[in-house]
């Protein structure tokens, strides 16, 4: 299991997150109303259900990856079960944050999700960059793709 996935599991609130996300009225209402269910799908438009994601959506539509990668391709682990763990945690976290409106703006990616992102770059571009990433790709001093390519997504 990757560092990123472990990261999600170790988060204390996550143990509660999944059941809560399903059970809690707040969680369910928010989740349904915000088309949170379709959120588990792959259509970037689903993400844009939240105006708060509009900037990224607009950027993505114009961006170089529009034709080749969806939001989830970059932001959700590609392997089962990490995919659903991450989505559950992000899904719950998302709705919670959105409902409580208690998140930092502008939104900045958190370390756990940054690691997922990095792994996804490599998932698609690993062969292309395998010479330059020689050595660890996850350690805190691995070549960070976003150091130079922050703008590729949106």
């Amino acid at each position, binding site marked *: 299991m990757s560092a990123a996935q472990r990261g999600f599991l170790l988060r204390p609130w996550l143990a509660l997150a999944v059941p809560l996300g399903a059970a809690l009225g707040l969680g369910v209402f928010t989740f349904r109303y915000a088309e949170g269910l379709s959120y588990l799908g792959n259509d970037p438009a689903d993400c844009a259900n939240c105006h708060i994601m509009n900037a990224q959506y607009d950027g993505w539509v114009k961006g170089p990856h529009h034709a080749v990668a969806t939001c989830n391709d970059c932001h959700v682990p590609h*392997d089962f079960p990490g995919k659903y763990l991450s989505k559950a945690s992000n899904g719950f976290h998302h709705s919670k944050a959105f409902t409580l409106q208690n998140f930092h703006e502008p939104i900045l990616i958190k370390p756990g999700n940054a690691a997922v992102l990095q792994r996804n770059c*490599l*998932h698609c571009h*690993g*062969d*292309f*960059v*395998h*010479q*330059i*990433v*020689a*050595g*660890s*790709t996850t350690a*805190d*001093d*691995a*070549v*960070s793709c976003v*150091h*130079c*390519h*922050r*703008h590729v997504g949106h």
Partner: protein
Amino acid sequence: NIFQRKQEARNPYLKLVNVDETTTDPRVWGTNWPRQFDSYSRTVDQTHTRYGGSDGPVPESRIERDPWLKRMFLGYAFSLDFRDRRGHAYMLYDQEQTERIAQRPQSGACLHCHSSVIPTYRRLGLEAVGKTLADAAGFDWPAVMRGFEITCQMTYTQAHAELYKTPDGGMGKPWAPSRLDAPPRETLSATQAALAAHVGNAHPVSCVDCHDPNNMELRITRPGFIQGIAALAASDKPLPHLPSIERWRQGSRSRPYDPNIDAFRQEMRSFACAQCHVEYYCSTKATLFYPWGNGLKAEEIEAFYDDYKFPDGTPFVDFKHAETGAPMLKAQHPEFELWSQGIHARSGVACADCHMPYTREGAMKVSDHWVRSPLLNIARACQPCHQVPETELAARVAVIQDRNHDLMQRAGKAIDALMTAIVSAKSAGIDDARLETARRLHRKAQWRLDFVNAENSMGFHAPQEAARLLAEAIDYARQGEIACRP
């Protein structure tokens, strides 16, 4: 799949031939890593930008271009010959060719940054204790350090001979220019003739100087840097752009900071260059050292020198100015030091990010080993981070560099006026107190101006800091002039 790629990641290269610590001939490495070797070889090409590099068989003279610069160095070898830099391939050749070597005895330490000298250090270090290269324990730091000390005691000619004696584990055929039976450089016309010249076993900076032959990881090989960066880490100066030092400071400090153990990879992408692109002392009164024990800022280095005593107990000085008699300091290419004061360093942008940008080679992405001005390669050096047109990026650099250049010329006028004032004050016979003040100010002013002039980015690496130093240079120069007036 991911698992397989992880395997690859650990060892992404298949080695066709073996390379080890003694292989200084880059062509041998080239069989394993042709892409990097090809670009590395391009450093024989001569390039020129508004302020960078130099083309033509002989680099342009900086002291002829700026008369005030030549005057600043009167009494010192730099007034004989000081030229624009060019590609890495020329580093040994240009050192061999300079009048500073031809007309002045120099220390063997000079080779520390102009050649693939580590195997020579190792050999001399081992021989000193009655061993041979065969007894080397891998890189063998103790031997290397000892050999380094030994060459610092030698004359340039002695050390140079030792360098050429050390086997390069290579093909004997030349690839980079050298004085040895090469046509005198006046007639030397760039690449071809350069390559035609024979170098025996000596090489400019080579793969082994930056890479661990076992896994190709970056590593530090230069004793001067190892000692300098350790002293810097031990100081209390904040270094927000070097997180691994901040981390080491939090720890037990039971051993000195060691870049090969402590540094992050992104830092290594700058340290590899900071082995040489730094201010140094390199002469006969002490072993080569980098003056960082008190910090990296110009005035912190100045304070370090002001407190420093040579082994023989005399206060530190690089030379006595021929005209003013002031005890001067000489600044050399403080790229690492100035970069450290800039926003790029603070943002984690490494030398290699701009000077060795990644480049697409077919299905592969590699580092461009044609180390040169990023302005020759803006698309790769800058555009990944700055999504603006190349012409616009070039224009932004021009604004910064032109501003710095004009301000530097203004400072040049000021220091020139100061030297004139001291000369006439002396002949007019002013009292020693005022003369001393004027000389002290000459030293301070020139140190700052030289710091910016010797730095090779024409202010780009840290624009505001460079302008600040020039402002102080002007202030001290003019104050010195005032001290000369009744």
